[in-house]
């Protein structure tokens, strides 16, 4: 789960990480009402779940209240990578002396949380990682000790030669780590963390993602969720035991298992088609799940053909076939559907499906080819 910059900023403040003053506005009128005409230099920033806001024109300086209003007017309603801007954060600009990067992630290799810091702040860290990885210091945090104070200070001293700055930075690392653990975060970034001309240290921009598996115990975080229509569909699907992600193609697919579902999408692409979605219905032969999946799938108007790809393991293919028959019975659609069954009792399953008149095949390749063909009719 993702949150907006302004929400990450709120969490930072709760944990004592200094941030510049700012106001969140939903409308131009709100900007008029809440931003004082005091000559303060401000930054107007689009609040969207997408990177590259700056390049897209979603971040603008404002030298006056009038300019803040004008920029908010331009940015609100803007489309950035498919996300409509519904809020802007208008924050005081600070005199930046130096910019740093601070991030925490769950790391697969060390099986721990890793603290990443860099003196190359303010730019995309992925770019730094690509061009000059040696400029990012990565420290795996021992889960048994957590980030220790001496450790945070040792790391801070590598970036901040002035001990006063290093102490503040170390305390920010510790606070961010505490926040990260407390909220079951999967990514927490401050970029940039700046030292101002006045010698203050502040988090100018922040980003936080959260572990979806832990949201059941993170009601505070969950209440921050703001989603687009497509995302809402994914969440609804999840609530019904389905993993659904909308894509841009025309071949809908319904698969049991995430790996197989990805492989199915890949195969559609390999054979010249474009998958319309990722959809994993999990391990059971429950007809209701198939019905739910079909409904979600067909709500996408781009879908021109559907490929159902089932591998029968513990659940036998003949049971799956019965479930499919019972489900397809209730679904009235003009969209062509290809069914592929394989694995345990595949033959029996395909036999049963013959009665439906649906095209049935035994391999993924055939199914993909046939679905692509049908989508073009």
């Amino acid at each position, binding site marked *: 789960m993702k949150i907006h910059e302004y929400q990450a900023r709120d969490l930072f403040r709760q944990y004592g990480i200094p941030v510049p003053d700012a106001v969140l506005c939903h409308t131009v009128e709100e900007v008029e009402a809440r931003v004082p005409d005091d000559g303060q230099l401000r930054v107007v920033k689009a609040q969207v779940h997408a990177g590259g806001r700056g390049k897209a024109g979603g971040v603008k300086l404002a030298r006056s209240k009038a300019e803040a209003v004008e920029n908010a007017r331009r940015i609100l309603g803007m489309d950035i990578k498919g996300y409509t801007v519904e809020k802007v954060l208008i924050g005081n600009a600070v005199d930046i002396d130096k910019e740093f990067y601070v991030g925490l992630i769950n790391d697969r*290799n060390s099986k721990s949380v890793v603290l990443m810091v860099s003196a190359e702040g303010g730019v995309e860290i992925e770019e730094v990682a690509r061009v000059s990885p040696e400029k990012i210091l990565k420290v795996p945090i021992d889960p048994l000790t957590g980030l220790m104070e001496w450790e945070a200070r040792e790391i801070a001293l590598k970036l901040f030669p002035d001990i006063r700055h290093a102490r503040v930075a170390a305390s920010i690392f510790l606070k961010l780590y505490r926040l990260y653990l407390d909220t079951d975060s999967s990514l927490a970034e401050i970029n940039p963390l700046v030292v101002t001309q006045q010698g203050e240290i502040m988090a100018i921009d922040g980003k936080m993602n959260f*572990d979806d598996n832990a949201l059941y115990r993170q009601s505070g975080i969950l209440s921050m969720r703001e989603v687009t229509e497509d995302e809402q569909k994914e969440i609804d699907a999840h609530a019904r035991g389905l*993993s659904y*992600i909308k894509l841009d193609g025309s071949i809908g697919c319904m698969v049991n298992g*995430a790996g197989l579902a990805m492989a199915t999408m890949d195969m559609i692409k*390999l054979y010249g088609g474009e998958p319309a979605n990722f959809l994993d219905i999990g391990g059971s032969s429950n007809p209701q799940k198939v019905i739910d999946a079909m409904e979600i799938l067909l709500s996408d108007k781009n879908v021109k053909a559907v490929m159902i790809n089932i591998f029968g393991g513990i659940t036998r293919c003949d049971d799956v076939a019965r479930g499919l028959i019972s489900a397809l019975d209730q679904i009235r659609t003009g969209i062509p559907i290809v069914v592929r069954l394989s694995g*345990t009792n595949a033959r029996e399953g395909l036999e049963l499906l013959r009665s439906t008149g649906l095209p049935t095949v035994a*391999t*993924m390749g055939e199914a993909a080819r046939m679905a692509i063909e049908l989508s073009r009719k």
Partner: protein
Amino acid sequence: MSILVNKNTRLVVQGITGRDGAFHAQKMKAYGTQVVAGVSPGKGGQVFEGIPIFNTVREAREATGANASVIFVPAPFAADAILEASFAGVELVVTITEGVPVRDMIRVMPLARQNGTRLIGPNCPGLITPGECLIGILPGNIFKQGPVGLMSRSGTLTYEVVNMLTENNLGQTTCIGIGGDPVAGLYYRDLLQMFEEDPETKGVVLIGEIGGDAEEQAARFIKENLTKPVVAFIAGQTAPPGKRMGHAGAIISSGSGTAEEKIKAFNAAGVPVAGEPSQIPGLLRSLL
């Protein structure tokens, strides 16, 4: 021979009175796995399908000499169940449960290591040494004894591939589903080493997917350490960045973790990568 499990493996099922635990305990027993105990707090003393139930893993282990455990308890309690098994001295713990918070797994890892416990999963289908021992939810009937070692981050895709191998008369020493979560137990590198050392294993199939860089690391490890042939497949070439593709671990972050990078790494290591699953048996046979 095989790796990790064989006919001497003595299994305890944690969460044996739950729906999935009960169902698969029977399935595993029917396959021939020595399911020696179940654990369900408060139900100690009862017997389920001939399997004695205990209140704690410690009791189960002391009474039955169990040396492996499989976990079917719900996600909020799974990490604690792993710790219970590990602190009771169980050597191999296989966690089937899906949806375990990553923070919980990160906490578990160093403790399991200290206790000398090997973990597989969570969010995995388990592992099997065909004809000897099945732990987890794998469909036993599609596996067959033979010379191929297999490891995979996914479930049904694994079955798909195993089915093709078996149909092409390429049986398996041991097949392991390592799980689809970002922080998990034994991973490619650990298992590649074990397969390398297992005399029965003649070739290895590695099924990867997008997210993380475990496949890249595996590729480097193969290049430097493996004498046996490896064939790879990577799922998720068409996955969009930033989206979680079912598995919590299958997410492309800011241009890293892509299928393209992984395939490149395998190519650089001289490991053939199948364009689609059906090519795997042929590629492997040509190298054996």
